């Protein structure tokens, strides 16, 4: 799996190489050549942010 930016860069290169107008056929052709799936971000962000905020509170009010 690749991240979104990689996919966009590859798609831009693909369009530049093929030199044909954009359209669903182009997207299908790209997907055939690059069948990798891009994955949505993991769910960890919420817990990581909560942990970060809890630490901020502890630091500010520890004294």
């Amino acid at each position: 799996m690749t991240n979104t930016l990689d996919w966009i860069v590859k798609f831009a290169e693909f369009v530049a190489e093929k030199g044909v107008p954009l359209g669903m056929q182009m997207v299908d052709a790209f997907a055939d050549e690059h069948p990798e799936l891009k994955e949505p971000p993991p769910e960890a962000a919420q817990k990581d942010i909560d942990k970060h905020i809890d630490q901020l509170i502890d630091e500010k009010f520890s004294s």
Partner: protein
Amino acid sequence: MTDIGYFLVFCGSMLMASACTPSAIAQATNAANGVAVFSEGAHEVLAGSYQAEQEVCVDNSTTKDEALSCVAMVRESYAGAWKAYRALRFAWLGLASSIEGARLSNSKIDPAELLVKVGRLASTQEVFRQAIQPLVSNYDEHP
């Protein structure tokens, strides 16, 4: 029928018509990747807004109890959006596992299964979009 209803019927028809061709996996991949692109941007904005609102709580509070109470309210107001995001990701995993399974076994995707999973993904994406809209409408990523 709503716009999203017509869209789902259109997607379903396209998938049914193309499910017996080799590009069915490619089309399912396109659907999954489209949601992944949306999710990445929306998740970034959601996480940024979620963190910013809690930092404001910490900055503006004069006591620990006040900060904890303010932070708890922010977390509660975002709980539905995070739940919707988990549902969206779960639906994406369902479609992705079908795509990867078909690819690994070199078999075609069952069109009925694909239709259900793409429909579920589209509906969870809409629920997530509606859940985050009021929360992030005033969020400026680069103040």
